[in-house]
């Protein structure tokens, strides 16, 4: 029988530690597939932010664990010293758009030839579901127990659009991991964001709308439905910057 689909060669044969219904596993798989398909596995150095995902524990590549929010800075240092390698960060929305807001904007501003994958699930997952800059209005979190209120908590931030406004950005896109069609599109975005770096371009960024069933208090299937119903209308999908030009 012909084998037509298998786990990417780059993923260690190891069970993911993620909660049922969490889309980190899908995102890891897509990144690993893209690296495999681009034939750059030997050249990749991963940078992991702080959050649930332990990227380097699942994908076979050289890897550094960065401080919370600082992955784009640490990636900048790596790329300065090893400009021929492909540097990919994997961060959450709290990591990227809150504590690391300055680092990611300035990495974009310098046009760093790196690729940032940002998982946006609207909460701080690992610390137990606190409000993130991306938490939607009325969304209940452990620090907005009556739901996020605009007057008190401000409005949710859109990282892809923020970075799209930075002149140094080369490729900016937002995908979602809630259904097969969106997963396929997300993979295209990830591949383009890595290919751009291979071709010597930057800054490259893909935001992936993701689930956190545990902290959302929803079942896995309900979580996927929430991405479609609540997140996508606020966080529009698609490419925002291609070849350094706004789409």
């Amino acid at each position, binding site marked *: 029988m012909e084998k037509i689909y298998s786990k990417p060669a780059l993923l260690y044969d190891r069970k993911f530690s993620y909660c049922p219904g969490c889309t980190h596993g899908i995102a890891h798989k897509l990144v690993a597939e893209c690296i495999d398909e681009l034939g750059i*596995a*030997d*050249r*990749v*150095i991963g*940078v992991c932010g702080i959050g649930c995902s332990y990227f*380097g524990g699942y994908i*076979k*590549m*050289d*890897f*550094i*664990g*960065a*401080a919370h929010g*600082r992955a784009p*800075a*640490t*990636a*900048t*240092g*790596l*790329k*300065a*010293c*090893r400009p*021929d*390698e*492909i540097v990919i960060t994997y961060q959450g929305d709290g990591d990227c758009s809150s504590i690391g807001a*300055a*680092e990611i*904007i*300035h990495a974009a*501003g*310098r046009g760093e030839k790196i690729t940032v994958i940002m998982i946006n699930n609207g909460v701080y997952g690992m610390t137990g579901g606190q409000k993130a800059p991306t938490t939607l209005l009325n969304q209940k979190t452990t620090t907005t127990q009556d739901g996020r209120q605009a007057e008190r908590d401000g409005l949710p931030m859109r990282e892809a659009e923020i970075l799209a406004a930075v002149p140094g950005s080369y490729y900016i896109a937002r995908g979602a991991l809630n259904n097969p069609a969106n997963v396929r599109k997300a993979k295209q975005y990830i591949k383009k964001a890595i290919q751009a770096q291979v071709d010597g371009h930057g800054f490259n960024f893909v935001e992936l709308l993701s689930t956190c069933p545990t902290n959302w208090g929803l079942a896995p299937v309900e979580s996927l439905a929430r991405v479609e119903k609540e997140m996508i209308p606020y966080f529009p999908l698609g490419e925002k910057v291609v070849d350094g030009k706004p789409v």
Partner: protein
Amino acid sequence: MAKQLMKGNEAVAEAAIRAGCRYFFGYPITPQNEIPEYLSRELPQYGGKFVQAESELAAANMLFGGAATGKRCMTSSSSCGISLKAEGMSYIAAAEVPCVVVDMSRMGPGIGDLTPTQSSYRQATRGAGHGGYRSIVLCPSSVQEAFDMMFDAFELAEKYGIIAYIYADGLIGQVMEPVEMREPIDPATLPTPPWALTGMHGRAAANHVHSGTDAEVFERLNKEKYPKIEAELQRWYDSNLEDCEYVVTGFGTVGRIAEVAVKKHAAATGKKIGFIRPLIAWPFPKKAYAKIPASCKKVIVIEANNGQMLEDVQITLNGKFDVVFEPTWGSNMPTVEQVVEMLAKHI
């Protein structure tokens, strides 16, 4: 080699290049700006890279990434900038990645001011950041020493897998003195360490640079690594300790001024006054203080701060000798005459 008249900051920058460093990550802050300015101009000519970070916070975390590739990397800053770098330094220390941090320090807490003092000794020697890590702290007292210590710093950082920290004051950074140059090291001749992030390129196992310390790592650092460095690395300058009646001790610029004052006062009074100047402040040179003879009546600590190295002297001597402290508070280094007056109070 021929001597060149150089400003301290430029000598540090030139020494970094000659020591084989090609990567600098930093953020402007007075009084160290000549370091990034010099390196921004020079490093590209050597195939290196200068990155002006968006903040000291980012610069230290860039340093973490750069140094994790196994190449010689550095940053420089000054007291309040070091506070911001503290996060990255703690991660670097946890990951045991070698690199060099230069602190041309400022006066006092907060924004402080630019006058040369020694008020960040605790920040330098206790680890600026969280978690009880250690850095090797080199304390130059002249532009020549600052130049030479940059070579030592890269070597020691790599030997022990640790941050080597040059703790100087703004005077060292700003003053011009003749410097004897050293032959440059070609970084291409430096080996790539086995743990370095290079991309796998056929290597069987991936290299991971972790900044997470579990209990086992924390215990190893504190029970094995740091004690080993403390035992092996004791550097100081001393003079006239034999049969001395008094010992005067200070580090950096103050140590240099104090040594002149000690000679003057000894000549004027006929007293036997020994002198100790730590060249490395962590590990503190306990062996130097162990040399103090029983004939010593008093140990006089002089610093341009509120008594910070004083604590290390007290811990080291553990009540064995009477220890007195003479400070200068901010806004400048003492003159030789002022130190002589200080000494006259006790000797």
